[in-house]
């Protein structure tokens, strides 16, 4: 692998790494929202 190829690979890995991290953070948030909804559902049922 040449130096240019290493830098280009690094740049594209950074882009997809950040997007993936963002998706993981959103997934955790959705999980928390699901828990909150379940909690509200439990309360409503009494």
């Amino acid at each position, binding site marked *: 692998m040449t130096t240019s190829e290493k830098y280009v690979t690094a740049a594209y890995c*950074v882009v997809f790494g*950040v997007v993936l991290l963002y*998706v993981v953070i959103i997934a955790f948030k959705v999980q928390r*929202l699901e828990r909150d909804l379940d909690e509200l559902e439990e309360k409503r049922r009494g």
Partner: protein
Amino acid sequence: MRRIPLPVLAAASLVLVTTALVLVFFVAPNDADQGFSQRIFYFHVSIAFTSYLCFGAGAWKALRHLWKRDPGADLESYVAVHQGVIFGALVLLTGSIWAKISWGHWWVWSEDQLVLFLVLFLFYAAYFMLRFSVDPGPQRANLSAVYALFGVVLVPVSFLAIRLSHRLIHPEVFTRHGPNFGGWILAAYLVAQAAVIVLAYTLYRVELAGKLLDVRIKELRTA
């Protein structure tokens, strides 16, 4: 207005990003001047334009909040600015990598375009400090909207900086006569640009849906 369903947007993002990567790495020729390293350009420039679009959308929603008092415009402005900052960080990171291979430095302080983009990025990064230093409510929404509107002035300045600068190290990609390239390079760039815009819009819609759900749950708790 009917919105495109999220699964359709997610599928379109996947198809466009995959097509863009195939065009960038297997179809577009090597640049005569920079060689293989020029391939960073396709996503770097696309992400930069997308971050400008996000900041523009954030300002537009901020204006709608201040002018028409659109319900939800404040939250939409916040999410758009958030997307803009994420994409702005990617511009700085990919740009630094490209600068290192092309110019031999991670950052060049004498380049107006670089410094102005950093100023724009830091301005919008400070938006969150302002927003979360005020309690939730109309005051927070109004202050955030005014700040988001002020920041958008920096977008054309950042975009035009390259034309105002006399030390042109940073390449000028778009001139008055159109793009400085054609053929497969242009085709790969256009597909990459479409891919990044659709991806950003998909992420915007996902984040906004989460925020709206969060607001509704909080309202139900206090009801």
